[in-house]
């Protein structure tokens, strides 16, 4: 089977990305190449395209298929309280600073299906901070945002999430925050009403507000250095002095032109303080 698998070449990918820019103004050319190639090959295999040309034709001629394709191209894998130690650090080191604010604005950039947003809302609730908070979840993909807004998560994942929640320093039981129906957990309205979801493309869109905390986790690893730097510029513009920036476990500001604007609050958990 492996012998027959269709794989896109470097040149074919270049050409394909150019066509996408031209037709849809979506630019994936600054994404990490290898990961992107794997995603395209995955679509070719899963959807049994006979050739690259066939896939390209489908993408160009059908905008609905294109949005499905974008969804397949970007990695949406996420979970609640991903890296519990990170959430614990937020709670212990960042929340006391946020508590000094009258109004707390938080931006989850590249929030995917919203698990991270719900996780933070729960911890804010337990710290009595949710009432004066607003959590903005943005992503380039409208489909994942739709799911995030619904507040529905499959129950099969809840056991892991409950364990993560406890390790994050959760004070009660995760089941306090949802009701189960038809195999789905519906998270409570009191959490959802503090969230705003909207489409935002980090590669092309501008800063749209000022935030006390920006989380952008497991998104920048898919970007090349130039695009990463552009996004750090966007975040720097969107944070006041004293604001916080949180990245994913393997992401860093260290090699960026903007690193001098920040100092580590917690190096291990990748949380920076803007100076």
């Amino acid at each position, binding site marked *: 089977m492996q012998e027959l698998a269709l794989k896109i070449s*470097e040149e074919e990918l270049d050409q394909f990305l150019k066509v996408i820019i031209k037709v849809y103004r979506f630019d994936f050319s600054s994404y*990490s*190449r*290898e990961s992107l190639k*794997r995603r395209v090959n995955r679509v070719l295999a899963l959807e049994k395209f006979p050739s690259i040309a066939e896939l390209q034709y489908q993408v160009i001629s059908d905008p609905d298929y294109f949005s499905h394709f974008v969804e397949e191209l970007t*990695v949406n894998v996420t979970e609640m309280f991903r890296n519990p130690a990170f959430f614990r650090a937020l709670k212990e080191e960042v929340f006391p600073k946020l508590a000094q604010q009258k109004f707390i604005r938080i931006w989850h950039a590249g929030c995917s299906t919203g698990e991270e947003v719900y996780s933070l809302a729960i911890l804010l609730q337990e710290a009595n901070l949710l009432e004066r908070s607003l959590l903005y979840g943005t992503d380039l993909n409208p489909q994942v945002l739709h799911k995030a807004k619904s507040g529905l998560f499959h129950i099969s994942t809840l056991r892991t999430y409950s364990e993560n929640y406890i390790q994050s320093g959760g004070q009660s039981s995760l089941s306090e925050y949802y009701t189960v129906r038809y195999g789905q957990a519906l998270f409570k309205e009191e959490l959802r009403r503090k969230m705003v979801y909207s489409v935002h493309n980090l590669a092309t869109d501008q800063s749209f507000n000022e935030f006390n905390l920006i989380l952008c986790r497991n998104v920048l690893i898919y970007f090349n250095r130039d695009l990463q730097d552009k996004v750090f510029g966007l975040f720097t513009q969107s944070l006041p002095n004293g604001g916080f920036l949180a990245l994913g476990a*393997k992401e860093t500001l260290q090699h960026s032109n903007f690193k001098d604007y920040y100092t580590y609050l917690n190096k291990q958990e990748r949380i920076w303080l803007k100076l």
Partner: protein
Amino acid sequence: MQEQAYKLVVIGGSVGSVGAVMKIIPELSPNFKLPIILVLHRSATSHNGFITNILQDKSPLFIKEAEEKEPVAQATVYVAPADHHLLIESDFTFSLDVSEKVHYSRPSIDVTFESAAQHYTSNLIGILLTGANTDGAEGIAEIAKSGGLTIVQKPETAEVDTMPQAAIKTGQVQHILTLDEVINFLNNL
């Protein structure tokens, strides 16, 4: 074995493989020049520095976890970080990826082997060790097809032989060696 300008060694394994690399890596000559990448299955929450630290304790070579966008450097042993796939870009830098597991594994051996094969072609050596699943077999086949050299641990000497057996079944394995023979082979490159 044939003379070739090898530029990278990738080593994969699952159950029992930490023990196996603990045997191999400390025995390598301090002058060993090629970069080595270790892709070992372990639990997502396993402490990241663990393998790096125990190996560094015993080895003359420099051991570190592979980092996002880091260039692949000589005389360095890179450990693929837990819970991420490790890829190699065409400019020979690392990139990480948290997409779906492959063969129930992240990092997946196939993912790294295939990505390395693509850019290192005939300058690559792939070694597959003990393990209880079939991750790595396709990667080994891909390395062979790209002109690289493929080695698997002799199944009778593996803690669990599923992984080496699956690789051998692809018909693309060139050498079946004991761990001591692997050490000898690498030190004589």
